[in-house]
C-alpha cells in the first residue's frame, strides 16, 4: 500500500476514517460496462486493452450496476434509452459518479437536431465530469478519471473543513 511508502514499514498512520474511505474510493473507480455507441469502443474497450490499461489506476469494469462506482455514459442517449440510463443510475450504490463521455452524452453532439435525442445526459442524471471529443481519445478518458479523482479528494477536504468550522 502506498501509505507504507510514506510512513515506513510496521508503523502506524493516523487518518480520519473519511479520508481513508475516500482514498480507497478514488483509487478503485470501477465503471459499469455499459457502452451505448461509438464511444464505448474507445472509452470502455480500448481503455481496458493493453495499450491504455486503465487497470493500473484502479479503474476496471464491472458488469452489474450494483457493483459499479462510476457510470461512463458512452454514446448518444435517445428518449427510449433515457429511461434505462436513469434506472441504471438508480441501481448503483452510493457513492456514485457519472462521466459524460463525448459530444453526444454532453450535449447531443452531431445528432443534436434530431428530436428523439436527449440533449446531454445531464438532463437525466447528475454528471460529474464531461469529456469533450467525438469520440474522445482513451487518453482523454484517462484524464477525465484523474479529474474525477481530484474532485473526490476535494469534496472530502471541503467536507472536513466545514465540519471543523462547526466544531
Amino acid at each position, binding site marked *: 500500500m502506498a501509505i507504507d511508502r510514506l510512513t515506513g514499514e510496521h508503523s502506524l498512520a493516523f487518518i480520519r476514517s473519511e479520508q481513508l474511505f475516500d482514498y480507497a474510493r478514488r483509487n478503485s473507480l470501477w465503471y459499469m460496462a455499459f457502452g451505448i455507441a*461509438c464511444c464505448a469502443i474507445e472509452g470502455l474497450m480500448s481503455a481496458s*486493452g493493453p*495499450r491504455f490499461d486503465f487497470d493500473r489506476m484502479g479503474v476496471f469494469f464491472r458488469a452489474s450496476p450494483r457493483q459499479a462506482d462510476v457510470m461512463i455514459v458512452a454514446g448518444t442517449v*435517445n428518449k427510449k*434509452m433515457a429511461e434505462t440510463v436513469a434506472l441504471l443510475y438508480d441501481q448503483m450504490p452510493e457513492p456514485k459518479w457519472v462521466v459524460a463521455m463525448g459530444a453526444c452524452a454532453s450535449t447531443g453532439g452531431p445528432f443534436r437536431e434530431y428530436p*428523439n435525442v436527449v440533449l446531454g445526459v445531464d438532463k437525466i442524471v447528475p454528471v460529474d465530469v464531461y469529456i469533450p471529443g467525438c469520440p474522445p481519445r482513451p487518453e482523454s478518458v484517462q484524464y477525465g478519471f484523474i479529474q474525477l479523482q481530484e474532485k473526490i479528494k476535494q469534496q472530502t477536504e471541503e467536507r472536513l473543513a466545514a465540519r471543523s468550522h462547526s466544531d
Partner: protein
Amino acid sequence: MTDPRDIVSGVGMLSEGTHFVGEPPAGIRRVPTGVDGLSTEHLVINMGPQHPSTHGVLRLLIEVDGEEVVAVEVTLGYLHRGIEKLAEHRRYDQLGTLMDRGDYVSGMHGEQAVALAVERLMEIEIPRKAAWIRTMVAELTRIASHLVWFGTFGLDTGAMGQFLYAMRDREAAVEILEAISGARMMFNYIRPGGVVDDLPAGIDQKILAFCDGFETYLDEHHALLGGNEIFQGRVRGIGVIDRDTALAFALTGPNLRASGLGFDLRRDRPYDAYPELEFDIPVGTTGDSWDRYMVRMEEMRQANRMVRQCIEGMPDGDFKAKVPRVLRPPEGEIYAATESSRGETGVHIVSDGSDTPYRFHYRSGSLHAMQALEEILPGHLLADVVMIVGSTDVMLGEVDR
C-alpha cells in the same frame, strides 16, 4: 415413443384450475410441460439493453422453457438517432460524418459507399491513386473491425486472453489509420472525388511492418482461441444458419458466406481498386458459428494480403479529382454499396439537384442479421444466446441508425 407431456397435459394442478391465479402477465405463456401433475411455465428473460455482451444496446426478450430457448423477440431502437433524416440536412461532403457514426467500428466502408454513390450520380472519374488509397484504408479498417469482433467473440464464449491480444493488434492498425486520416475511429477521410489528403511520408514502411507482423499474429490468435477445445465445443454446430434461411433474411457479408454462398461485392460488383487485386473469398459449408468464425479469420488474412498489394502497387498521381466545392448532383437516384465488415453497406440517394439529398437511405448488413436471430436462436440453450449473437457480429449503431 410418445411425448410424456402429451399424456399429462390436462391433468394435475392445471386441470384443477389452482395454478392460474388471475391472468398471466403479458408475455408469459403458461404451458404444461412437466410430468406427474407438476407443471412448469415458460419464463421470459429480459436481456439488455444494458448487458455486457450484447455489443451495444440490443435488447432481447427470451422465452425459455427451463434452459431451452423457445422464442426470442428482438427489440430495437435504443440507438435510433435519425441518421437518415439528418442526412437530408447535410451537404453531400458531410454525409461521411454520419456514416462514420453508423457503423462506428468500420467507418471507412460507410464513407466509401457515400462517395461511390455521389461519384456515380455526378459521373466523376476518380484518379487511380485515390481508388488504391481507398481500398487500402478500407481493408485496414476491416482488419481493425474484425479484431474487435474477434476479441469480443472470445469474451462471449468465456475466454479473456485473446481480447488483450486483439486490442494490441487493433491499436497498431488504428495507429496507421490515424496517421493517414487524423482520427482513430471517425475518419471522414474518403470524400466524393477521392480522399482528403495524400498518404503521409514514410507510412509505407509502417504498413509493411504491420502486415509482416500481423501475418504471424493472426496464426497466434487462431491458435489461442480457435485451437481451444472448449471454444470449439461451444461453437461447432451451434447457431446454424442454412443457405435458405440466409437467403430469406437477405444476409450479406461473412454471415452469408459462412452459409456456403460465395457472394462478395468486392468480387461480384467490384468498385475502386478491387478488380486489380488478388484475393480469395472464404466460404463456409454449414453456416454454424464455427464457420462464421473461420470466415472472418480468413477474411483478416485476405485483407492483410490486399493491404500489402496496395502498398506495393500504389500508383503515382493525384489523390483527389477536381470536384466543385459544393457538390450539386443532377436530379436522379442512385444506389451504391460496399462490402463492409458486416455485409453490404449501401446508400440510396435521391437527389433533387440541390446541395443536400432529398432522401437518404442507409442499408446495413447488421439489421438483417439481427432479424435472423429470431429464427435461429429458438432451440438453443440460454447460455448459447450470447455466443450466437456474438457470432453474427451485429453493430447496433448500424441497426438503429
